[in-house]
């Protein structure tokens, strides 16, 4: 009995040591070779997504029921349909507004703007979010089977939500522009000055993310629109990101920085649109 007990304590410490070493090794491996472990991620995703889809369906069904009494169910369905339509129309409208603007002022320079207007789009529902509660990542219910690929742009309500980072059989992971490790190359709408839009989860508590690397001489004022720029290699040009406020000099005195209010309400996002055109496919686009 005494021998058995001794073995037990040793083995619990041993398991602990082995697992900690394994974890550290995995961290190093996944840091050095990011793609090596992606099949594992995909497999885990494929296992959980059907269940999460089920829960999402059930919970949205329950919340629909709770939201209003059953005799108004038809109204809810119609409302949902209309909301989706409004979202699509908003996207459409943003494109048109920008196109008109560009046509009036920059006809010669940017005649090919709003490439994503005619691009094929897919609507998808959010089925799970980052377990730590922040809105920096979520999983949608469309994947390879629906033609989703890595680096496709994700929109909602006429604005940029983020980009696809991982794709499984019938799911895909989206990293939003408010995530700390996200940075999007942008430009200001009337003046075309360039900037970098960086995610900042902490500032997002107040509803802002960061805009950095604005030229000191750039003429930028509050409430200017920020769109994705032409020099980005992953984001399609001309997608609205948000509105700029609180412009000030960077502590380095080399450029200016500002806050940006995203157009998308990340907290209450339920469905998104994915543009099926990749930036790298836009050959001949200048």
């Amino acid at each position, binding site marked *: *009995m005494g021998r058995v007990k001794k073995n037990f304590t040793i083995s619990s410490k041993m398991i*602990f040591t082995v697992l*900690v070493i394994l974890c550290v090794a995995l961290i190093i491996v996944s840091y050095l070779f990011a793609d090596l472990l992606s099949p594992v*991620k995909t497999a885990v995703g494929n296992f959980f997504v059907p269940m999460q889809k089920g*829960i999402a369906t059930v919970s949205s069904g329950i919340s629909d029921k709770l939201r209003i009494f059953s005799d108004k169910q038809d109204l809810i369905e119609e409302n949902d349909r209309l909301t989706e339509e409004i979202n699509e129309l908003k996207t459409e409208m943003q494109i048109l507004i920008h196109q008109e603007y560009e046509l009036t002022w920059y006809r010669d320079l940017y005649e090919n703007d709003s490439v994503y207007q005619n691009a094929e789009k897919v609507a998808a529902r959010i089925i799970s*979010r980052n*377990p730590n*509660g922040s809105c920096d990542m979520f*999983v949608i219910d469309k994947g390879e089977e629906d033609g989703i690929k890595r680096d496709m742009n994700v929109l909602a309500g006429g604005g940029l939500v983020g980009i696809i980072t991982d794709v499984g059989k019938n799911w895909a992971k989206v990293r939003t522009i408010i995530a700390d490790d996200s940075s999007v190359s942008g430009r200001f709408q009337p003046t075309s000055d360039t900037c970098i839009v960086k995610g900042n989860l902490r500032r997002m508590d107040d509803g802002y993310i960061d805009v950095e690397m604005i030229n000191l001489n750039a003429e930028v004022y509050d409430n200017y629109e920020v769109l994705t720029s032409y020099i980005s290699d992953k984001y399609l040009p001309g997608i609205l990101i948000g509105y700029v406020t609180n412009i000030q000099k960077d502590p380095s005195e080399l450029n200016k920085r500002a806050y940006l209010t995203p157009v998308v309400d990340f907290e209450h996002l339920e469905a998104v649109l994915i543009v099926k055109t990749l930036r790298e496919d836009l050959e001949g686009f200048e």
Partner: protein
Amino acid sequence: MMIIIKAIIILIEIIIAYLLQTSVFTELRLADVVPDILMILTASLAYIFGKKTGILTGFVSGMLIDCTYGSLIGLYALMYTVVGYVAGYAHKVYDENDYTLSFFIVGGSEFLINLMYYILFYFLKGDLDLGHFLVRYLFPRVIYTVLISIILYRLINMNNSLFYRLSKSIKKEKRVTVFNGFNVDDDRQDI
């Protein structure tokens, strides 16, 4: 045999906890935080069964988060494994009928994992504002997690006592076989 049944039961519990955390409670956010269901499970099982179970549960739970939401595989697994190990020390004072102590253990574990989270995700990135992290993330998370654990710990503990009853009945059968003179060594290993 018992260990396989136990492993399967715990695995199912982990999967349920994971689904609750990613799909159900993300819709039930309070003060923008999600209760850490996997942490409740890891700490409770470590408290009920001891270090070994705590470590393994923590490792599997952390691995799940890593594989679906982590950028580096192994970070969350490391944090949950450490917490499972530390919470396992509380097994010495485990009492099946005492519910109060479990809240302190779950709360303490949540505090510990958030401190590790702060060090790994904020401190090493150069964000030294611990006060903001405490008020904005740590305290809400600990409070919400402990609140949810009031319900969940009962379920986990109930499950555990069911499991014990099952294992006792199997042991009784074994004792009968011992009584009849079969395979005495088998029983000794089971202790």
